[in-house]
């Protein structure tokens, strides 16, 4: 009766299948020790099984660019019920590690690097459309004999904020690096992140810019550095910098030649 042997078996099953049933964790007296150790290593434990952390599973799926309808998220995961999967997905959205979009009538979970319409843009589009509808309402009544000049209708339609063209992931990454290069302080070799974010606007909103920066950092193409200046960031600068570890703000970016190479 060796807990280490059962632990190794469980780890192997978790690596290969993503979950292991509690009943398969050895004789009953050993199980709590094995479960405790697995939980300490970062796995989730439920009453009946031990599985890979759901947030981690979701992040792995999203990393591949997969779009997941919220209702069927559990089908992309292992060892999770539908409510558990939905809760984990919404947690991820709350933490800013995924986006929730409405496609036709289906709420869908998408990666943060996806080009989505920002909240401000949504609000202004809705307001402009409401204004036009209000203007047209009396004209479409059956009793009405009034119409509009075509040029006036065009002027009304022009009030709708320009719908930005969708930008593909590769194009966005290309624009990010172009912005980093354009804003680089040549002597210091660093780009000020708020300047990068501003130069990407309005086509890429702040949240997407942050996601792109963090993704590039994760891929070892970019080094994001914490601000250690003497209180030099304005309120707007602080909003434009992605949050870093231990309460810092990542205010400077440095391009790495390849994969973490300096």
């Amino acid at each position, binding site marked *: 009766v060796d807990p280490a042997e059962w632990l190794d078996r469980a780890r192997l099953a978790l690596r290969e299948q993503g979950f292991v049933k509690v009943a398969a964790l050895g004789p009953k007296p050993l199980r709590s020790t094995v479960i405790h150790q697995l939980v300490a290593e970062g796995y989730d434990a439920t009453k009946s099984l031990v599985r890979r*952390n759901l947030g981690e599973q979701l992040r792995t799926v999203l990393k591949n660019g997969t779009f997941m309808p919220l209702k069927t998220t559990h089908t992309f995961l292992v060892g999770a019920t539908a409510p558990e999967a939905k809760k984990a997905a919404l947690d991820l959205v709350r933490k800013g590690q995924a986006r929730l979009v409405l496609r036709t009538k289906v709420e869908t979970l998408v990666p943060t690097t996806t080009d989505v319409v920002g909240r401000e843009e949504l609000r202004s589009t809705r307001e402009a459309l409401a204004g036009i509808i209000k203007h047209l309402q009396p004209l479409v009544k059956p009793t009405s004999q009034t119409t509009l000049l075509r040029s006036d209708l065009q002027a009304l339609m022009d009030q709708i904020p320009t719908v930005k063209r969708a930008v593909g992931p590769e194009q966005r990454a290309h624009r990010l690096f172009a912005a980093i290069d354009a804003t680089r302080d040549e002597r*210091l070799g660093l780009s000020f992140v708020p300047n990068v974010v501003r130069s990407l606007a309005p086509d890429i909103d702040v949240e997407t810019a942050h996601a792109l920066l963090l993704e590039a950092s994760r891929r070892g193409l970019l080094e994001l550095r914490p601000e250690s200046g003497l209180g030099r960031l304005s309120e707007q600068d602080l909003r434009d910098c992605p949050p870093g570890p231990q309460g810092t703000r990542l205010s400077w970016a440095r391009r790495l030649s390849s994969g973490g190479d300096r």
Partner: protein
Amino acid sequence: MTAWFLEAVHANPWGDEFVDLPALNASASDAIETAIRNVRETARTKPTALRSTCLTVLGPAGAGKTHLFGRLRARLGPRAVFVHIRPLVGTEMTPRFVLHEIVRQLGFVSGEVRQIDALVGALVAHGTGNSTGFPRFFIEDTAHLEPKVRAEKLEGILSRLLETWQELDEGYLRCLLAVPFQKSPSDRALLSWLSGRELDAVQLERAGATAALGEEIVVPALKSLAAAASVGAPIVVVFDQLENLIDRERESSRLFAYAQLTTDLVDTVHGLVIVQMALDTEWDRGIEPSFNLAQRSRLGMHRHLLGLPTPKEREDLLRLWVDRLPDKPQPFPWPLGERLLARFCGEAGMTPRMLLIALRQALDEGPVVPTADGGESDVEPARDAMEEENRTGDALSATWDEYLSSARRLLDEVADQKRCIDPWRLTDAILSALRFVPGVEPLDVRASRPAQVRIVRGSSEIHVSLLHQPHHKSIGAALTKLLDLARTHEVVVVREGAQEFPPTWSDTIARRSALLREPKAQWLSLEREDAARLLALDEMLRAARSRDITDHAGRALEEDNVSAWLRASLDVASWTLSKMLRGERTDQDMTDSRDASAPTGRPSSGLVLSALTRLRLLSLDRLMREIVRVEPSATRASILSELDSLSDRVRWVGRSIVYLREES
């Protein structure tokens, strides 16, 4: 479970213990090492082409700038002399200050060899055509020679140096070469003299000098030191935490003065390796813009931007630390777990300091346990804002205590050497304290004036003199100048209580009495605890500027937050010096300000008898030190008064040795 390096969140440049990942920022340390090698090679092969090099190392807080200093010390050992200088902020740095720091740190041990021994030993080895890698051997070898033979050998080395570089100062070099072969305490006295520090009569005699190093000798002394060291163990001067020179509150010339000093060092002193270290983002926004073109071209010669550790380097670093932990219940990645390890290795913006803090937290709080519902429990639990504030306050309080203890140790050290704190340190400390004293503003500082600091209170100007001199003649001269000044201006003279004038200095005491008869003159006997608080405050503010003060969770605190805590917690305005500068009545006013010829301190409550019983026979100075350690408020006057009251049991030898008579 603790290990020493977990407490060393901020690198100690002179720490003995050292954990290093050589691959991390290897390019910066390699560049400095190459510069050292180049200086040595040039000094040996083309001495006339010898020049100084300046490198700039920039990085965010916690990236490992100060750590590089330790790495180079560990890697090069005695093959270079290392000098770590944190800039003065109240006083402009001068060549004398740099000389003082270089020679002071020659007395430090690096690579198990005292740096002065490394310098002279390497010089002796090179002079006799040997390898300079084992300087201690050559010091010991030379020390065993007959004095006459040794003197001839050292003279030969000196002659060769002077043949190569004619502008070097012969007298200074002769003294420098002699230091390792002097017995203690003469070697300390000689080093003090070489550093440009003023000495008292006894130390002057030990150093074989009649006066302190003159101002005209300072630059030749620097040249001599740099050139002599360059052939064996070149001197590496590291100016660290340069962001402290930025003054955002008022127009200040200290950055320009710093740049001028280092430019002059590069131009006129040959054979130095100068390394400047600062926060990367402050260098371009606050430091370099203050330099003129000539200064920029010299100081910005070679720039190295420290990178953050790559995921692989982060894992290696964590593994290195965990391997050094005693009593590990499990192998790495304990205590982090796979998931936390992956997070720390992948998270953007992680500095080595942040990693160390994260590891420390994991050890303190246990491994992070994910919840069964898929949520992440490694997000900090939401705490009450008030509780957070309290915990941060506790952390700041603990930090303050550390700085206070460190200041007390320094004061004990200088008291043992029978001298006052270096005036520039006390000047910086007073200026730092003034930030928290309402109604008082610093005007300017000039080290050459008898009253170095001028401050403004309302419409009046107050001249503050830091009377730090150890020699009675220098003090007498300063008091005479202060007497003239006190006839027209308000003067506050500050002298450390631990360095009260001995009763034998009757002329000095008379001059002080004459000064204090002037209505505009005031005397502050700065007690040990008051001095410790001033020094601790200054150190803590500097650390805050460099983002070295952290909260309970290890997060770097903003300078403003630290200042706010200091303001709320310390009540600096009620400190004795602050009260005096604000024109308020202090405790000392009530006891001894107008009776300087016989100051009456607080009673030492039988401590004198206790110390005499324990030690039997000792000097008055030693007795004072013993009493002051236990009762910081005790003064020389109070101790003498208690000795008088014990006249039936106490006997004197001359006026300085005292002993307890055996009871029959």
